[in-house]
């Protein structure tokens, strides 16, 4: 269970700096601590080091894509319970299915609505 008095930490991984800035800014304004990563490998290392409360991951990332990263997170006992929201331009049904298959908790299409992102983050964190 998340400690209700502690500010939740969210790991945002996206190779597009503009998207990372937008997500980080919006989540920070909504009261979360945000750490950022520019590729999947860096995100995995940061997750192992900091154990965030939630991860917002781009699907198409260098080194390790969002699907593979989610799969690794689910396979790692210390990270397994961290919720994952996939954020991506790929929005066909098969892509969505694949995201859930590898263990993602939610899925958001790019271009995204920042208010919707915050609502989804709250919902996913509230389910923990």
């Amino acid at each position: 269970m998340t400690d209700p008095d502690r500010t939740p930490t969210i790991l945002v991984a996206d190779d597009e700096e503009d998207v990372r800035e937008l997500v980080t800014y919006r989540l920070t304004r909504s009261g979360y601590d945000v750490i950022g990563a520019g590729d999947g490998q860096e995100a995995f290392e940061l997750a192992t080091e900091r154990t965030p409360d939630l991860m917002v991951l781009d699907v198409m990332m260098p080194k390790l894509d969002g699907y593979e990263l989610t799969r690794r997170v689910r396979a790692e006992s210390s990270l397994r319970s961290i919720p994952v929201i996939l954020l991506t331009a790929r929005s066909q049904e098969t892509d969505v299915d694949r995201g859930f298959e590898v263990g993602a908790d939610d899925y958001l299409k790019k271009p995204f609505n920042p208010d919707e992102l915050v609502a989804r983050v709250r919902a996913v964190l509230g389910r923990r």
Partner: protein
Amino acid sequence: MSVLEIAAVALTACSIVMLAVLVTRRWELARRARHREEVEARLRPAALELLHAGTEPPADLSVEEKEALADLLGRYARAVRGPTHDHIVEYFAREGMLDRELAVLAQARKGWRRATAAFRLGDIGSVDAAPALVRALEDPDRSVRIAAARSLGRLRVPDAGAALVAAAAQRRAPAGLVRWALLQVGPPALPELRALLSSPNERERAAALQLIGLLGGPSDAAEAEARLRDSSALVRTQAARALGRVGGERNLAALLGALEDRIPPVRGAAATSLGYLRDPRALDALTEHAERDPFFEVAREAARAAARIDLPAATLSASGSGSEHLREAVDLAGIR
């Protein structure tokens, strides 16, 4: 000093000067890029505040800073939608940027300026730019037409469907880009696409059918089936392909008919679509084509479709026939 020596010295001197010019230019471009990054980094908090809270940026920005802010907001605009995006559109409208870019698109003599304006109009995100962008699809400069097609896709303007398809059919814009733009628009583009099915231009009819196949639904199947009798093989091919997505059991007979079309690509498309429909009644005809169709692509597609419909039956047919295509299709289906 001989003439040869003088020429060698002159050539060396020219090379050194050219090298110096290139190095200086590269250095200058890098310096400008660094400066631009610094300006953007300074303006980023203001841009993010504008996006998320609608907070007006400082009033005393220089022309350069305003341009950098516009570029930054344009990039952000590609990533967001909803009220956050609306803040960007409102800012651009207040600053008169929409009118400015529209004027550049209409009046600039240099093609790259018009193309930049067409590109920016897509990022600005106001649908008021749509009529000008549709006109820009006829611009004599290809880069302007490409930027206009891309921006119409970004703006998701349903009314631009016919103009986009026409631009692709007349090769004024790349077909792949136009498909992308229309997929961005989505089902609202369908009425315009359906109207294009009666175009006298076969490429327009074919492009419209292809997109209807991607965006449409079962209600489009009857029209697609009717187009299997079109005089153009290009249209018949796209009709057969579309039926693989929007068609159903009631289109089986028509697709089996298309499997006997005298034009191989039509037969190939019909075979593929029969595989998607997965109706066992198509199995005999597909096996027959897999074994005997004289065209490689058609035989291969027929074999794959047969394996997709009924793998055990296709395996049996493969073992009793000399069709390499059937054996390959069965093997591939087994791997999957």
